[in-house]
């Protein structure tokens, strides 16, 4: 039985399931939406260490499924995410979004088990396609953002494929292991991976596209693309010092832009970049504790970020509004959504007893142990900033703040159940960290709950809370967006294309008349010379032909007699 099951790649269950989903009636569809992720989770846990499934393609050995602790950790959280997301989205009327979301989750699991670069690339691109469909399912307003999203990810795919081709040409092997930055191909692969983490200069795609998806779509989107990228960085580039600086930039970029943002789901999108920044920093530090911390933080992050977006999605679903300036005071009639949102907010802020506390502190601790003083101070400052920009800002402006006059109820039972499930998971992992630690790639020696650590974290967070309320006047929401590097292709690029169009039109009009005049001249000359009435087309008398032959023969005679 087990041997047969091993032959099924866990991700394939969700991909095939997603493809047949639109063909089914509503009751069967809903049953499959919940059953398939559970089956996948079971299959994930059956994958042993080492190569499980391989095949040959051309001259290459493709390893479709290869297991180890790191693969299983990510595949597990991707499966759990697919389950809770499906439960939350059960009454989503756009079936194509649900189908794409399942394929998306399956492709992410495919990435987590891919043992070679080509298999990795195929699932990587499948994720890009499926996630674009999820963005597009947001409706007509999501079309342009979805197209920009697809363009950036296809660019990332091109970088990755170029890198893979170089790597295969140089080594002759497609195996996916630790990569080096000694060659251009290594850099290209790193760049391809980093595009999907939301690293600079391509951070803007995330807050641009994700918030345009539907109330349920962003729950799925928040989980897979960026965390699959964290997974491949963990495997391919652990201990790459550059990643420390990239990660720290992402951490502060996310905070500063989220502080300025008015749209509740864009606030949460910026905070995805911020949180992935912590993971990328951990990967850059590269010690066993730092890598454990990055992996654990990815696991915890998927759950609390999905919880936050379920809470925001419930508000969007019930009110149709996204802007903080339109919201406020919803705690009165949406108590469960408020409480679950607060649990998610405390978890992202690494409050003691929540999942974020037991995972993120490993990264800071690793920086401290390595003697990276500046990194440690910056991570501590960023931890305070997370509470400011997401931990308090999101619940405060959506559920409290002022009375917006809106009186929406808590959403449907399945949405409430999904939120309760993930809120419970956030607290369980926070209170029983060994559950998470036992899944990590390296043995864990870290003890999160020491007196000085808990007190330090409480001081840090509570005083950043104090700072928030004292500076509330400065943080008042305005009907604004903040320009980002996507301005280059959304504004400057469009302007340049407009200017180019005008000039090209002028150039074409002036030159086409000149060219056509000249062309007509040439054609007339050719017509005169070679046309039916031209010099060379006339019928010549036989005498002329005889004369020519005589002349040629005479010349031959003279030349041969010498």
């Amino acid at each position, binding site marked *: 039985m087990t041997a047969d099951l091993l032959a099924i790649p866990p991700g394939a269950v969700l991909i095939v399931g997603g493809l047949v989903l639109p063909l089914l009636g509503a009751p069967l569809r809903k049953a499959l939406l919940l059953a398939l992720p559970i089956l996948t989770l079971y299959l994930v846990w059956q994958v042993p260490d080492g190569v499980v499934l391989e095949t040959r393609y051309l001259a290459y050995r493709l390893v479709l499924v290869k297991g180890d602790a790191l693969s299983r950790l990510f595949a597990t959280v991707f499966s759990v995410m697919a389950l809770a997301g499906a439960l939350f989205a059960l009454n989503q009327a756009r079936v194509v979004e649900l189908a794409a979301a399942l394929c998306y989750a399956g492709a992410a699991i495919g990435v987590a088990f891919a043992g070679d670069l080509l298999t990795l690339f195929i699932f990587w691109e499948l994720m890009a396609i499926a996630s674009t469909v999820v963005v597009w399912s947001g409706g007509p307003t999501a079309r342009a953002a979805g197209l920009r999203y697809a363009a950036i990810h296809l660019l990332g795919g091109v970088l990755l494929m170029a890198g893979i081709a170089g790597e295969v040409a140089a080594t002759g092997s497609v195996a996916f292991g630790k990569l080096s930055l000694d060659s251009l191909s290594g850099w290209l692969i790193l760049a391809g991976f980093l595009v999907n983490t939301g690293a600079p200069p391509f951070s803007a795609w995330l807050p641009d596209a994700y918030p345009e998806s539907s109330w349920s779509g962003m729950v799925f989107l928040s989980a897979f693309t960026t965390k699959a990228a964290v997974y491949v960085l963990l495997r391919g580039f652990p201990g790459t010092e550059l990643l420390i600086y990239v990660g720290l930039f992402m951490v*502060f970029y996310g*905070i*500063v*832009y989220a*502080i*300025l943002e*008015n*749209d509740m789901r864009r606030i949460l999108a910026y905070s995805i970049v911020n949180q992935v920044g912590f993971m990328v920093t951990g990967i850059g530090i590269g010690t066993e504790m730092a890598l454990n911390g990055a992996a654990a933080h990815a696991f915890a992050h998927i759950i609390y970020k999905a919880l936050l977006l379920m809470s925001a999605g419930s508000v969007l679903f019930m009110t149709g509004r996204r*802007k903080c300036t339109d919201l406020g*005071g919803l*705690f*009165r009639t949406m108590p469960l959504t408020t409480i679950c949102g607060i649990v998610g907010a405390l978890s992202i802020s690494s409050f003691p007893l929540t999942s974020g506390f037991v995972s993120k502190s490993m990264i800071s601790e690793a920086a*401290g*142990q390595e003697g990276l*003083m500046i990194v*440690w*101070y910056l991570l*501590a*400052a*960023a*931890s*305070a*900033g997370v509470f*400011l*920009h997401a931990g308090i800002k999101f619940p405060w402006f959506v559920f409290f703040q002022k*009375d917006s006059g809106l009186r929406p109820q808590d959403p449907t039972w399945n949405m409430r159940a999904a939120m309760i499930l993930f809120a419970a998971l956030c607290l369980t992992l926070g209170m029983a960290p060994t559950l998470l630690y036992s899944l990590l790639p390296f043995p864990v020696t870290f003890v999160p709950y020491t*007196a*000085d650590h808990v*007190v*330090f*974290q*409480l*001081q*840090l*967070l*509570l*005083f*950043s*809370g*104090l*700072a*928030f309320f004292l*500076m509330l006047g*400065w*943080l008042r929401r*305005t*009907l*604004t*967006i*903040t*320009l*980002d590097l996507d301005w280059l292709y*959304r*504004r400057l690029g469009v302007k340049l294309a407009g200017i180019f169009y005008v000039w090209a039109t002028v150039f074409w009009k002036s030159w086409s008349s000149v060219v056509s005049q000249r062309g007509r001249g040439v054609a007339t000359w050719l017509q005169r010379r070679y046309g039916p009435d031209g010099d060379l087309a006339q019928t010549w008398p036989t005498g002329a032909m005889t004369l020519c032959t005589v002349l040629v023969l005479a010349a031959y005679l003279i030349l041969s007699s010498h």
Partner: protein
Amino acid sequence: MDDHWLTRTSTIRLLWILFIAILAVTVGLDFVIDQHPLFGLGGTFGFGAWFGFASCVALVAIAKALGAVLKRPDSYYDS
């Protein structure tokens, strides 16, 4: 209409008093517990408190400065 007990002025005052008391306790705990600071500043009294507060003030100030240059009406890209 807006008479929820949480929004009453008296409740809000009570919450502030409670909050400040909790802040005082967390800083006060520095006297009691053993500290193992990793770096020099970490050993200063109430490090988490003042560092967290100062970080947030700095981050908000940076955000305000950046916002002054980069903020646009949210219909900017629609036009």
